[in-house]
């Protein structure tokens, strides 16, 4: 039936079919003139360069045991889940719940258990491994999608000028440091890889090589969606947009688009089916999905969202980028689908036009995230793609706009790159800054390698903090008063000695998240329905949590840790166990209570 319906298309006027030669036609000629090995050479060279650059800028050794950065609140948020998994709880649900991706928790736990160490330092090393993997993937995708020269330019711009990869990196004149537990390119790498590589995959579909490549990309998208929710929606919208644009522009046949998208979905399901089956087997599928979607749904409907710079409008050097970029993206997206001289809507896109459009699309999809929680940190997802947008605009747009002479194309491209720097603060592209970021990985490693190795901590609490960090002068970023790490370690060791392996609930802890105490004192978390600081968002949800705590969790709880006996959980505990033993500790000039149930 389909064939009968499409037969009449052959009478279409020929000029529509021959406006621009599709990339596939050129490929055939290339295949004839190049041997397979020669064609593979730039790809292999690109991948080797990408991995080499990724190793230099983000790879080991990191010498994290020689870093004195205090434990951050962001790390504390994820530590409770890791501790709960370590004590046998199901990952990502119940007491192990976190608002971030389930795969990141599982990957960090596995790396800490088998590759690094089960400590704060070990967590940072695990995070560094994830960041290294993310940077490697991003650079590889840039080289694969844009070719060697442009891939190199994009990668170097990302590493040296734009701040996204500086969130966790070798800091100039410092050490490998940053926003552990939050900043990771893997949060966005799935969208980037899927959207940028999909046109090339569609071009090869439905041949088996195309289908295999689409399945691989779909698997990676599935994996990164498991690692971070940001990849799921952005990837889905991006894939459908690329498929639709390929179809409507006449750049790809329906069969190719259908085969590519089906293979992407199949690859996605290869990753997700076992995950969903695992939780279904444990009777926690609903809870897993609820937790996975909890934060994205809340953020989409307004929770956690702010104007640019927050409600206090904190100044940011990236204000220009935030305000101007969407208008640039809107203009570039339209320019990507029109031809000039004469002005017309482009059909039968060549590879360059398709690549330019998907670059705009990927940047636009990543930008949407910063529209919600609008601050410099959340702009970093977009800034991972902006270097690619700059390079592709400079190298493709002049020709799309009708420039033909090489000089004109080169001048226009240079002007576009220079113009793009107007969106950045001056210090970002100042030669001294670029040089310092280029040298930092080498100089930091050299300097840190020369420092003496740290001795292994003797106490369990010290081991939980990790060698090298257990004796630093400042314990934690959230402390209301400065507390040294040895003092903190001493308290954690004392708590561990008192509580032991009892099922414990930490209600709060002096300006820090309870995860710090669970992890630092190696406590056995009581089986609460979720982490109240991470997965409880609203008043009604908190009421439901407390009701569940009172009826279901209390009978299974043997210890409560709190800085005030007036907290609801402490009151419930004392009502239920009036003979509970109360131990008063002192920390940061304040009291800290441990309530122990008598057997």
């Amino acid at each position, binding site marked *: 039936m389909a064939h009968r*319906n499409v037969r009449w298309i052959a009478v279409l006027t020929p000029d529509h079919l021959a406006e621009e030669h599709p990339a596939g036609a050129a490929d055939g000629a290339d295949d004839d003139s190049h041997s397979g090995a020669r064609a593979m050479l730039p790809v292999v060279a690109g991948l080797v360069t990408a991995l080499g650059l990724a190793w230099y800028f983000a790879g080991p050794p990191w010498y994290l045991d020689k870093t004195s950065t205090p434990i951050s609140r962001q790390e504390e948020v994820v530590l409770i889940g890791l501790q709960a998994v370590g004590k046998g709880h199901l990952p990502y649900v119940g007491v192990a719940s976190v608002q971030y991706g389930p795969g990141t928790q599982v990957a960090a736990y596995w790396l800490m258990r088998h590759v690094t160490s089960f400590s704060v330092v070990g967590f940072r090393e695990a995070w560094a491994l994830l960041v290294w993997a993310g940077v490697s993937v991003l650079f590889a995708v840039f080289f694969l999608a844009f070719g060697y020269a442009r891939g190199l330019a994009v990668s170097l711009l990302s590493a040296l000028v734009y701040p996204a990869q500086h969130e966790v990196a070798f800091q100039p004149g410092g050490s490998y440091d940053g926003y552990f537990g939050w900043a990771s390119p893997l949060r966005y790498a799935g969208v980037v890889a899927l959207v940028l590589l999909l046109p090339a995959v569609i071009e090869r579909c439905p041949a088996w090589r195309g289908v295999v490549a689409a399945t691989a990309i779909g698997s990676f998208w599935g994996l990164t969606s498991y690692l971070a929710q940001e990849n799921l929606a952005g990837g889905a919208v991006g894939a459908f947009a690329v498929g*639709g644009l390929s179809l409507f522009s006449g750049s*790809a046949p329906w069969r190719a688009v259908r085969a590519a998208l089906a293979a992407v979905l199949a690859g996605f399901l290869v990753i997700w089916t076992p995950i969903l089956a695992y939780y279904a087997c444990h009777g926690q599928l609903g809870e897993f999905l609820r937790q996975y979607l909890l934060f994205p749904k809340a953020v*989409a409907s*307004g929770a*956690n969202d702010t104007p640019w710079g*927050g409600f206090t409008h904190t100044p940011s050097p990236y204000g220009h980028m935030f305000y101007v970029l969407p208008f640039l993206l809107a203009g570039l997206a339209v320019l990507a689908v029109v031809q000039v001289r*004469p002005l017309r809507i482009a059909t039968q896109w060549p590879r360059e036009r398709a690549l330019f459009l998907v670059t705009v699309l990927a940047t636009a999809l990543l930008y949407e995230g910063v529209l919600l929680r609008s601050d410099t940190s959340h702009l970093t997802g977009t800034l991972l793609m902006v270097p690619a947008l700059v390079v592709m605009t400079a190298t493709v747009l002049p020709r799309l706009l009708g420039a033909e002479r090489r000089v004109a194309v080169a001048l226009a491209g240079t002007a576009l790159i220079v113009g793009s720097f107007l969106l950045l603060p001056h210090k970002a592209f100042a030669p001294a800054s670029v040089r310092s970021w280029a040298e930092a990985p080498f100089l930091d490693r050299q300097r840190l390698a020369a420092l003496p190795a740290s001795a292994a901590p003797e106490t369990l609490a010290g081991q939980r903090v990790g060698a090298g960090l257990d004796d630093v002068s400042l314990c934690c970023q959230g402390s209301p008063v400065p507390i040294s790490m040895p003092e903190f370690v001493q308290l954690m060791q004392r708590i561990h000695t008192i509580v032991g392996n009892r099922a414990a609930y930490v209600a709060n802890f002096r300006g820090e998240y309870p995860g710090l105490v669970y992890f630092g004192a190696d406590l056995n978390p009581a089986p609460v329905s979720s982490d109240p600081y991470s997965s*409880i968002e609203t*008043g009604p949800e908190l009421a439901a949590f407390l009701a569940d705590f009172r009826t279901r969790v209390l009978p299974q709880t043997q210890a409560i840790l709190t800085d005030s006996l007036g907290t609801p959980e402490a009151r419930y505990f004392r009502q239920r166990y009036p003979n509970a033993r109360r131990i008063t500790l002192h920390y940061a000039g304040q009291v800290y209570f441990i309530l122990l149930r008598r057997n």
Partner: protein
Amino acid sequence: MSAQDASSRRPLTPIDRYRGSVNGELDNDAVTHGAARWLDRTLRIVDGGPRPFYRAAVVSLAVTSVLAMGIAVVIRPQGSLPEAQRLMIAVALAGAGLSAILGLASRAGAGRSRPGTRFDRVVAPRDRAAIWLALAVWFPFLLLVVYYRAKATFPPPVRYLYFPYDDKRWETTAYLLGVIAPAILLTAAARVLMIGRGKPPTWRAWLTGTFVGSLC
């Protein structure tokens, strides 16, 4: 049966096809007369150049403006009209006024044939048709922005414990409609019209042609 009239080598129109069906030349699953008549009329519009699509865009803008005013008036918290609603009504009034001016201009220019004008050389008529069609489809989507902007004037439905709250759905909707939708709509409109100019024999063939691509 061939999809072309063998004597003139021109594509069959749906009415031709319907007549063939009546004469027993087509299968029983041929299109019905009513559908064919609508298709025929639509295909004539497609062949009629950009003017019908320009009018469709103007009507779309007018209807969208009126509906936007309605949404802004109806969806609001109790009390006086919030600033956001007043602004939306003002913008919608401007849109309605613009559509009226454009409609009058179109009516005044009706009947004048201007083949080969300089404007045609800048933007070909068929591309202008696609642009107007894309705009005609795009305008009503703006009602989503209006709706979410109006909803954002309500207080939060629940109390969030640790997070700030700022309903920005209207911003993300406006962003997606402004950045991603135009490229998709322009490309889709051009495709739909291009397939339409090929005289698809049925609505289904038109739809299939829009999605099937270049017959690879």
